[in-house]
């Protein structure tokens, strides 16, 4: 292509380029492919969805402009509000389950004893499976008729986990956690390994035991890892679709119909693209707001080093 001729052509601009690079770091042009992809495959469809959220469309005919009416109808619909409440429960309980387990596992795995490596490999296994496969597997395992309870006829195992409207959401939260804890544990493991050993040596000299070392050295040092991991967990469970869809399809009844499923079922089962787009826009806005808020209140946008004096 034209790449052969370009070096010569670029030479005269060298002084300018050099000055600009000194000021702003890598060239802006390095970001162009990423930006182009982002614009094409994220911003453009997003704009389309935003426009569609003001329209009535069944997927077959021509979309018809309806204005703000669809927004009002969708947001005041009891089914949407129920889905919103379920989503909040889903996100909060997921976080309360995943965050401590991932943190403790990550810290444990950061140790350097050999047996830990074996355990770590086992912990990472869920990360290697596709979520659809995990969903199907757990659906079979939790089946009260043909699942685990057939092999081990123990009382609690034969509970109707996915068929009981009171339990299904929590069963889905468990499976989601099972999927994602290894990933976050990996983040924490990397974070812990970055902490200089000298900090622990100093803590030991000051008479800190294991618990105090964790509380006063590990946790503060992991601050930004926690922010990153929390943002991923919260936004991830907010937009979680695949696992729940495969596990329960939103049922039994509406027990696991969280917002992403509500969006999908409204759009691709009821073919009401307008209301589905409203839910999609709401999800995007809430997701963005949550991640910005997390960044703001934790001050991680400044991202200072936590190792001053180490």
């Amino acid at each position, binding site marked *: 292509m034209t790449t052969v001729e370009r*070096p010569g052509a*670029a*030479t005269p601009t*060298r002084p300018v380029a050099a000055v600009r690079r000194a000021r702003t770091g890598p060239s802006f042009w390095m970001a162009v492919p990423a930006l182009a992809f982002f614009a094409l495959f994220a911003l453009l469809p997003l704009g389309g969805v935003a426009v569609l959220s003001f329209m009535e469309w069944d997927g*077959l005919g021509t979309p018809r402009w309806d204005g703000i009416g669809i927004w009002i109808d969708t947001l005041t619909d009891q089914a949407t509000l129920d889905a919103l409440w379920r989503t909040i429960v889903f996100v909060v309980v997921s976080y309360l389950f995943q965050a401590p387990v991932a943190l403790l596992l990550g810290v444990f795995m950061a140790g350097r004893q050999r047996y830990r490596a074996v355990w770590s490999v086992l912990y990472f296994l869920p990360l290697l499976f596709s979520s659809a496969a995990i969903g199907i597997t757990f659906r079979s395992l939790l089946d009260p008729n043909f699942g685990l309870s057939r092999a081990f006829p123990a009382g609690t195992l034969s509970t109707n986990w996915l*068929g009981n409207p009171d339990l299904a959401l929590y069963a889905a939260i468990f499976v989601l956690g099972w999927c994602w804890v290894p990933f976050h544990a990996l983040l924490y493991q990397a974070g812990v390994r970055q902490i200089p050993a000298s900090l622990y040596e100093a803590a030991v000299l000051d008479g800190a035991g294991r618990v105090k070392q964790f509380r006063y050295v590990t946790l503060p040092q992991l601050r930004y890892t926690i922010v990153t991991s929390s943002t991923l967990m919260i936004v991830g469970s907010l937009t979680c679709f695949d696992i729940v869809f495969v596990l329960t399809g939103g049922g039994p009844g509406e027990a696991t119909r969280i917002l992403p499923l509500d969006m999908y079922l409204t759009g691709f089962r009821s073919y009401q693209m307008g209301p589905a787009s409203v839910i999609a826009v709401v999800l995007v806005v809430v997701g963005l707001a949550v991640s910005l808020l997390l960044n703001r209140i934790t001050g991680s946008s400044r991202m200072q080093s936590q190792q001053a004096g180490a």
Partner: protein
Amino acid sequence: MRHTRLRAVTTAAVAAVAALTLAACGGASPGDSTDGSTDGNTSDGDDGDSAAGGEAGAWILTGGGWPVTAASFERWNEANADQQITVEEFENDAFKEKIRTSVGSGEAPTLIMNWTGGTLADYVANSQVDDITAETEDLVSRVMPSVAQNGVIDGTTYAVPMNDVQPVILYYNEDVFAQAGIEVPTTWQETLDAVATLSDAGIIPFSLAGQSVWPELMWIQYLTDRIGGPEVFQAVLDGEADAWSDPAIVEALTKIQELVDAGGFGDAFASVAADQSADAALVHTGRAAMLLQGSWVYATFHTDNPEFATSALGFTTFPTIEGGSGDPGNIVGNPANFWSISASASDEAKQTALDYLNEFVYDEDQLTAMLDAGSVPPVAGLEDRIAQSDDAEYLEFAYGMVNDAPHFQLSWDQALPADQAQELLTNLSQIFLGEIIPQQFVDAMNATL
């Protein structure tokens, strides 16, 4: 110098890649086949760049009796080198989600498979399928009228049946009934008695795939029809105000909840999924006594447990309801799957599709293959052939059931428009779970009319 050079090369390369990407995306005009990239060699009807003009496309499903249809296309392609039909197979739910957007964007295959009802009405309203009344007269005349009429809207044929007729049948495990020492119920009172006896013996009376929800429709459909006749649901289809408030529907819902409370479906039916044939498995493993399902599970029983299917599989009609005004001969289910022809296909592709319909649908080979697979063709005058088939007992029962039925009710979720159908499935699942009472169901459904 070296740095600048490297940077310039990178910039140029990046610009080139970006330009290519943009060009590739910009090049995809609406007329092009975008399916090609995701599904391999789709042959869309509307693209003019197919090599041969007569090339057509068709999407079919997997499982059940679909291999017979796939084989029929194979025979067609062998015999018609210049009129190839490209066939793609989909899983049921995946197909339903993909076909609608394909039809809506004018990217549909030439032959559009559907279940008639609300979906076909939508296609017709948007002029997306062709009037094929004249072209398929001959084929339609061979099909049972109660089946063929589903593809007719306002006197015009838009869809023709293409596979087996699928009535809903009550299957049962003869061994389980022999052990429990009772007979298969034929009335509602006998049903309740049987439920009590079987539950006490630790057997699930009726296997029900509650996770899939649509099998629950068969219960409300049969109960409503037995209690109030087909007019009740016809009023819903006609959009009459408060049509769901009909006493027959309320009674049907009440009976469903009585049956659930009596343990009629066991306590874990909401975990049973039909797409893995878990409902059939409960029956052939002897853990459930009966199963109300479409005729396609006959093949499932034979595939999953041939020993049971040949020795202990029984089949009968839905029980009668004391005091009900509906004809006990009425049946519910899917009359068949239907072919429509995409309006956006090229004339050559349409001709290929029509030739296929007229020459290969329900031809000798397909009829033989269907009977061998234990499925019932909706074609009149097959009594002699059925009597000679391997599954004569079952096929005679199902064929007679369809032939003699005063009314064949298309599945409600197919008959209704998609948004009403979804609302129906959600509310019905909550009736089975005991989360709402019949009146709440009626109110919610009346709001959709």
